[in-house]
């Protein structure tokens, strides 16, 4: 025999472990099932009651769904009550049961007993499926006109659900609005207002019609505001706040875009928006709604300023809740009311120090929102001030915002460097990766600041409080790169900085167990650079580097070996470790042309060394050009992408890079390392061709370095080549180092890249979990574009993330590949830069792109995309549009 409900609850409460609870529930569920099977009518309500409890605990209860129906069909009210309760709680998705219940509900809707009707309406309102609601719409409509306000308000809410789930039924209910709103009963008016709101949201064209309601609504609000005490709907001195704020919300919808309606409400809004106190939650709730309405409708500027002032009053108040809503509302107004917002800078900044993370986060967004060229320095300082106390995850947010602020508003480079150093030292390891790349590029383009920066970094480096990895990496790069400037100038200035000190420091850092291997790469590179910048320390540097030739980390070992070897080739060491070219972000194209012509002039000397330099320059040019082609994003990311690209494409086919080089050098296209070696032997005396061959080698070696241990055969090739001739060896070495250096150089970026790769890998994994098969959206001329979709959300907005993969299975290479995407106005799409523009034939490579689609409206939307594919095949340019609307994704 099963237990009483009371006993079951007691039994569960008595359980000490989750396992015990499970046992009790399983036993009881079995008993209930048995009882259901026996058609035990007497115990049925009790069993359903127990199932409700079991369901709440998170255990399966589906087997009780049909029993609920039996209870509903029962004429007794007590049985019906439990049955309906069970129905609305236990039956969530089971369409069949819902469908079966339709007729019983229909009967109950026409019952004499209004409480039975009430039960049926409540169930419909909570779980009614579109089909049920469509079927029962006439009954609901009739009940909305019922005499009892008890039924009227419930029927109205069912109508709202009907509109939400069956939008085409909206016309049926439009006519009912006026009488509902005209009622005396607050409950009915409240539901009437919500009905209008839902109609307006589903069918925006109806707004014009409903504007006629504005005077009535204003009057209603006025009487509520001015009403004295009424016991029925009094909430701590405020008359029915729910009605008040729903009127205000409806006014917002009706006033938007209509000057006339906005004018009609201006008076009452001024009264509500200014007179209320801000000590009680109720008052603030109404003020908040009024202010949102003022800011959304076409109010005059004076009213808007008052609204902003009211919000600022919230911010300086004691209540965290009001601070939160105020910040949220101000954020929405940041674009429309920037001036009046800036006046409240102080209060907003104050919120950055709040104890509550939600508030601080909002405040951070807002501080960033009001930032401009004038106040960037002081606001950034404020952000930096709250950095040390911030939690880890919040530090990422702050540093990210500071970086963006610097990018957008930086007044001068010195300030930028100072700020970045502060971020690096205070932010510790919780900073966005591009801080370091930003730093290197800004120092590179400012020779005047190189001494200043390196000195500053060096002094901070001496203090071991700030030795976080990112800071160590950046500072060792800077000190290595500009070591000569640092030492010379500090000697002049009488600063107490000398080379031995620097080397000692590097050695200490290298030996420290807190230094990661990655940071050690940077330090080793800094050391080898030092050897070329400052004379007379070779032996000491060698001594420091030496032990790392046997380091357990392969990368570190390789670097140490190569650097160590480099000491034997003094004549090439200097140019290899020469200062990095200035990184120019936007004007790259022009400069490339100049550089090319300059290099070609130089190339007239029949000197191998110089020639190699040209090649190297050309490589740079080549990279730059690719970079330009790739993207117009921040410079570092460009290099980054390039890196991946070269690594990816080279193993299969070096065509990509070589094509371009062939054009420049008109050398024969060497496609493999063996060929390269042959060419090395054959064309030793031909300077022009040495150029071509040097390049081939370079690429080969770059590959070797890039792929580390995986590419042994190529490494052997390198070795062979090295042995062939002295000249070749030198060249080879040099190229190795050039590549090495580029890799070192790009380490900030590499790190960046690794992380982003990791991220995208993670994303991929997630996607595989969530998503079904990839979706082929385009297939023609051997080109196949596949997309896979993942529904999620970005910063609270529903979004679809997609990875687009393009492959080429034809035997002809595809070049100038470009994919563009358009979406309906209700969506917003963001397409990342492609991983390349050329796709090698025979499926040997692919182009990756990421697409993010954010939804701008509330309604559920099916995803549809318009694609434009542009590419060149066989020298023929092809442009094609393709609409993809059959994607099975709703969000």
């Amino acid at each position, binding site marked *: 025999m099963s237990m009483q409900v009371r006993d079951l609850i007691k039994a569960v409460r008595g359980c000490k472990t989750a396992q015990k609870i499970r046992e009790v529930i399983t036993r009881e569920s079995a008993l209930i099932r048995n009882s259901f099977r026996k058609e035990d009518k007497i115990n049925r309500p009790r069993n359903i009651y127990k199932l409700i409890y079991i369901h709440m605990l998170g255990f*399966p209860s589906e087997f009780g769904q049909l029993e609920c129906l039996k209870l509903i069909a029962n004429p007794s009210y007590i049985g019906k009550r439990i049955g309906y309760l069970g129905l609305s709680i236990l039956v969530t998705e089971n369409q069949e049961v819902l469908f079966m219940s339709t007729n019983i509900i229909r009967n109950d809707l026409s019952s004499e007993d209004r*409480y039975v009707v009430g039960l049926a*309406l409540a169930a419909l*309102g909570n779980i009614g499926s579109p089909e049920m609601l469509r079927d029962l719409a006439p009954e609901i409509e009739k009940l909305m006109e019922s005499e009892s306000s008890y039924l009227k308000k419930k029927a109205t809410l*069912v109508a709202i659900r009907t509109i*939400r789930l069956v939008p085409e039924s909206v016309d049926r209910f439009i006519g009912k609005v006026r009488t509902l709103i005209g009622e005396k009963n607050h409950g009915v008016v*409240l539901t009437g207002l919500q009905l209008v709101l839902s109609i307006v949201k589903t069918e925006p064209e109806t707004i014009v019609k409903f504007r006629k309601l504005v005077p009535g609504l204003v009057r209603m609000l006025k009487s509520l505001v001015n009403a004295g005490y009424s016991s029925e709907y009094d909430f701590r001195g405020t008359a029915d706040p*729910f009605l008040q704020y729903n009127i205000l919300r409806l006014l917002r919808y009706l006033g938007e875009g209509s000057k006339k309606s906005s004018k009609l409400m201006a008076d009452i809004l001024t009264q509500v928006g200014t007179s209320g106190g801000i000590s009680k939650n109720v008052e603030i709730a109404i003020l*908040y709604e009024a202010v949102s309405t003022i800011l959304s409708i076409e109010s005059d500027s004076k009213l808007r300023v008052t609204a902003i002032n009211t919000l600022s009053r919230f911010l300086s108040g004691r209540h965290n809740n009001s601070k939160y809503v105020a910040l949220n509302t101000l954020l929405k107004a940041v674009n429309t009311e920037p001036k009046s917002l800036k006046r409240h800078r102080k209060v907003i900044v104050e919120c950055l120090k709040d*104890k509550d993370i939600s508030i601080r986060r909002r405040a951070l967004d807002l501080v960033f929102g009001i930032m401009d060229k004038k106040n960037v320095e002081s606001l950034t300082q404020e952000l930096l001030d709250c950095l040390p106390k911030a939690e880890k995850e919040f530090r990422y947010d702050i540093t990210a915002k500071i970086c963006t602020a610097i990018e957008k508003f930086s007044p001068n480079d010195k300030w930028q460097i100072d700020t970045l150093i502060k971020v690096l030292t205070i932010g510790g390891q919780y900073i966005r990766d591009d801080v370091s790349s930003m730093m290197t590029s800004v120092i590179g383009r400012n020779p005047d600041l190189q001494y200043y920066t390196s000195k500053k970094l060096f002094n901070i480096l001496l203090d071991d409080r700030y030795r976080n990895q990112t800071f160590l990496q950046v500072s060792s790069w800077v000190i290595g790169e500009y070591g000569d400037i640092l030492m010379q100038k500090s000697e002049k200035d009488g600063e107490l900085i000398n080379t031995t000190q620097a080397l000692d420091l590097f050695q200490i850092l290298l030996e420290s167990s807190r230094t990661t291997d990655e940071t050690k790469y940077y330090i080793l590179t800094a050391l080898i650079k030092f050897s070329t910048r400052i004379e007379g320390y070779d032996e000491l540097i060698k001594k420091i580097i030496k032990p790392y030739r046997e380091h357990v980390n392969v990368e570190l070992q390789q670097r140490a070996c190569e650097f160590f070897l480099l000491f034997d080739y003094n004549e090439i060491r200097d140019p290899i470790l020469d200062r990095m070219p200035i990184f120019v972000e936007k004007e790259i194209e022009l400069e490339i042309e100049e550089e090319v012509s300059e290099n070609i002039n130089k190339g007239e000397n029949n000197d191998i060394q110089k020639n190699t330099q040209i090649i190297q320059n050309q490589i740079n040019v080549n990279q730059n050009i690719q970079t330009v082609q790739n993207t117009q994003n921040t410079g570092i990311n460009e290099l980054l992408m390039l890196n991946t690209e070269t690594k990816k494409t080279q193993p299969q086919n070096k065509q990509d890079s070589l094509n371009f080089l062939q054009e420049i050098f008109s050398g024969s296209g060497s496609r493999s390392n063996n060929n390269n070696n042959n060419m090395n032997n054959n064309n030793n005396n031909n300077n022009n061709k040495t150029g071509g061959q040097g390049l081939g080698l370079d690429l080969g070696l770059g590959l070797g370095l890039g792929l580390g241990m995986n590419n042994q055969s190529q490494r052997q090739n390198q070795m062979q080549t090295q042995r062939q001739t002295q000249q070749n060896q030198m060249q080879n070495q040099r190229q190795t180092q050039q590549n090495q250096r580029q890799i070192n150089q790009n380490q900030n970026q590499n790190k960046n890249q690794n992380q982003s790769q990791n991220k995208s890998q993670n994303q991929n994994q997630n996607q595989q979990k969530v998503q079904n098969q990839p979706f082929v959206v385009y297939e023609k001329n051997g080109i196949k574009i596949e997309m896979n979709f993942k529904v999620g959300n970005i910063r609270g907005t529903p979004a679809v993330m997609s990875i687009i993969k393009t492959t080429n299975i034809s035997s002809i290479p595809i070049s100038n590949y470009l994919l563009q995407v358009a979406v309906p106005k209700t969506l917003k799409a963001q397409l990342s830069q492609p991983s390349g523009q050329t796709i090698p034939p025979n499926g040997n490579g692919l182009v990756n792109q990421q697409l993010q689609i954010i939804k701008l409206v509330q309604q559920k939307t099916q995803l549809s995309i318009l694609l434009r594919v542009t590419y060149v095949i066989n020298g023929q340019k092809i442009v094609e549009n393709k609409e993809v609307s059959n994607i099975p994704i709703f969000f």
Partner: protein
Amino acid sequence: MIKFILIVNKLGQTRLAQYYTTGLSINQRVALENEITRRCLSRKDKECSFLEFRDLKVIYRRYASLFFLVGVDEEENELGILEFIHCLVETLDRYFENVCELDLMFNIDKAYMILDEMALNGNIIETNKKTVIAPLHIIDQVSKKLK
């Protein structure tokens, strides 16, 4: 629009759950409740009563050992919902006379009924305590007579 209303004790056990959105399986529901409750419980008194969860805003308020949590969409007035929670508590209090966790546990049907009278389909219907409780008193009288 209200998406769900939860009443949870300070151990994180659900005492009442009403969802106004469909499409959540039992497991998803349990996971959602666990996560929200965990985050709510970890918040300090001085922090604001709102937290963002997926695409929802959760508004919570603590009454003795019970947490009342309401999940709403972007548009809802957070402070208004706080007031609604208070109104709900006052109504429960009036009906149960000093409501406590046990009242809810042993009279879950009544608690649901009160809630249904006050909110339906994610909208607020009635905030007058007397009107809300009236039908419950009638039921109580009828059941007394039957006994």
